[in-house]
């Protein structure tokens, strides 16, 4: 057992840290650190900066543009990005559809899509969930009927993150409704500019627009957009679920947010003393900090072992990671007290330079708290994750 980074790892860390310091635009960094809303261009800009360096998809095989970094190095890179406050590289292309294309796509599909994903030429979104199918994904109803060289797609997807910006959507669609529900599903890539697609915003409880409903009304999709075999889509979707998911803990980001929380707690008072020095509030922060140490160590246990893909323990990482993210925001608004109430969407959207109250640090936090209730719901609710632990890990 040796729980220290090697000299090579430390040198790598310094190297990527230096890259970020020199290349992360300060306006982007400021937006991220201050919890302002990111626009399409903010994501693309950072993605393309990283892509020019060749690091946009570190986990990909080198042949497709990956970096060849070890799992530890990839962890360090993610940690440094989170520490600095870069916009995220969105997962829908790089981490979600790309691995499926690599594993099950044909050469033409690989040649067409992978470079465009790497460079963020296409913005991808994910068409899995439907109104009637929350945790029960396989019950999906959107149909794709083969007519000549095309599929005709009809139905509705929902919870489609950032679909309002998307060029492409990867979808699970039903191509056979006569068989067991898992066996009639196919995996389709669909151009979002196709006639018949309508995107309807779903406004979040913090009034942010980050998810959508996507309606398909007789949308023509060329058969060459089918991944792998017809009716094998469920297998490909499951492959993706088993793919590397330690990033889901967002532990690096949480570490940055812990410092932000401490800053807030040093500037708000209880009985005349900063909250950070109040034994009770400090204890809450400390318990969270300790939970983060435990989670980080657990992540390191997973990524440093020989087969560094977590199995069903990914469920544990997801549960703890989401709970910690939520508790951070919970303590932030608790520190604010009444200062959490003012709500100023103009400031959050970047339309005003300062919040209406003048307190720019406080302005986004209540929305952040409310928005982050999603983390225990999306990506398989925490209840579903506990089912998975009970069944797959514990054999119950």
């Amino acid at each position, binding site marked *: 057992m040796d729980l220290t980074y090697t000299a090579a790892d430390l040198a790598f860390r310094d190297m990527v840290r230096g890259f970020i310091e020199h290349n992360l635009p300060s306006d982007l960094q400021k937006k991220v650190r201050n919890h302002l809303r990111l626009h399409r261009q903010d994501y693309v800009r950072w993605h393309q900066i990283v892509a020019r360096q060749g690091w946009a998809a570190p986990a990909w095989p080198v042949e497709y543009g990956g970096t060849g970094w070890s799992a530890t190095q990839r962890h360090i890179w993610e940690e440094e990005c989170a520490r600095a406050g870069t916009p995220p590289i969105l997962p829908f292309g790089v981490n979600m559809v790309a691995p499926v294309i690599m594993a099950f796509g044909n050469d033409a599909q690989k040649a067409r899509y992978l470079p465009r994903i790497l460079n963020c030429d296409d913005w991808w979104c994910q068409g899995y969930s439907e109104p009637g199918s929350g945790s029960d994904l396989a019950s999906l109803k959107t149909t794709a009927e083969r007519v000549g060289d095309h599929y005709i797609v009809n139905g509705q997807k929902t919870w489609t993150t950032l679909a309002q910006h998307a060029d492409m959507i990867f979808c699970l669609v039903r191509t056979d409704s006569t068989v067991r529900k898992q066996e009639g599903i196919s995996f389709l890539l669909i151009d979002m500019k196709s006639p018949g697609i309508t995107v309807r915003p779903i406004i979040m409880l913090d009034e942010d627009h980050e998810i959508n409903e996507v309606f398909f009304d007789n949308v023509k999709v060329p058969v060459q957009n089918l991944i792998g075999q017809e009716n094998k889509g469920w297998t490909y979707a499951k492959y993706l679920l088993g793919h590397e998911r330690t990033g889901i803990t967002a532990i690096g980001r949480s570490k940055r947010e812990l410092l932000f929380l401490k800053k807030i707690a040093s500037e708000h008072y209880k009985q005349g003393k900063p909250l950070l020095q109040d034994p009770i509030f400090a204890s809450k922060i400390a318990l969270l900090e300790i939970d983060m140490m435990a989670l980080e160590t657990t992540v390191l246990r997973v990524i440093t072992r020989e087969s560094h893909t977590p199995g069903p323990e990914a469920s544990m990482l997801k549960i703890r990671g989401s709970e910690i993210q939520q508790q951070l925001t919970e303590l932030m608004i608790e520190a604010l*007290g009444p200062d959490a109430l003012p709500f100023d969407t103009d400031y959050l959207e970047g339309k005003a330079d300062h919040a*209406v109250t003048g307190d720019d640090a406080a302005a986004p936090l209540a929305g952040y708290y409310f928005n982050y209730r999603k983390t225990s719901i999306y990506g398989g609710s925490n209840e579903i994750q506990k089912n998975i632990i009970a069944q797959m890990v514990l054999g119950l």
Partner: protein
Amino acid sequence: MHFNLTEEQQQFADALRRWADKDYTFDVRQRIVHSASGVSDLAWDTLAELGMTALPVPEAQGGFNGDAVDMMVVMQELGRALVVEPYFATVWGAYFLKLAGNQHHRLGDVARGELKLACALGEKHARHDLCDIKTIAAINGEGYRIDGTKTVVVHGGQAGALIVSARSAGTQRDTHGISLFVVPTDAPGVALRDYRTIDGQRAATVQFSHVPVPASALLGRLGGGCEMLDEAADYGVSLQCSEAVGVMDAIFGTTLDYLKTRKQFGMAIGSFQALQHRMADMYIHLEQARSMAMLAAARMSCGDADERRRVVSAAKVRIGQAAKFIGQQAVQLHGGMGVTDELPAAHHFKRLTMIELTLGDVDHHLARFIAQRGFQQHSV
């Protein structure tokens, strides 16, 4: 000993429920929230017609002299319907005027629905501590001159007059030297910046620059505002506790309905034992919260200030815990729908959260509970 409502209390509750179900539906409420003013004159007039503005006012000033238990009944209904009108701010302000005893005409205006009030008490950095005051009230001829800034004044922008706390002596955190005033919002030197709150209400930053007020604007004794603040804050907390119970009742009901109707894996999600137990936990929280709201309302007028402080702080603590659990779990049980702006549940959750963050949170009231006489006592 009994927990029954009087016939009049039940009638008030029924009238409000009928009004909200018909004229203050969720859609109506959302339109009001997103309107320019953020409040509805029509709704206010209806509340006045229903007697709600008269309820807390003494009979001598044209009111019904309602006590905290009467107000409990009203606030629960307003909470249930997520009413965003400046009712609580006005009633709370009126309590200060009642304690002061020298504001009969203003109380009459309140009773008739002609005067809205707001309480300009909190300051930046004071957080939950109402006695942490930098605003200054200097002697100015026969009267006073007020300088300072009050933050997050709920419904300050909708009020005709403000209850203002200021320091006439002492230093920032002294409990002595605090004085209370009533100041018209159109007085010279009062500047309001009105904005939305995340739970759909309105609040304002209020700046006082050399605001002259007459001697008659002083509420109670010069420098003796701390005790009045303490009692009035308890009144406000007791009302907010009742509102929170109404909100929880509503969100609990819609969540239960959702569990019975939403299907996953071919069955109602309410048939999953883990969710059933969660719902049972929410039910227990709700009933404990309800008990504490009743106890706090009853003890507001018990005549024993120690007991009042102890019970009101206990209620805010217990209801704060319940509100967090019920709010978070209601959203969780609604799944993706719970985090959208479209469902009432999300708005109930936001309101519950903001009640917890105003007038002292769980930790504030826990510390206050511990500081009361009696906590340290342990003779068996």
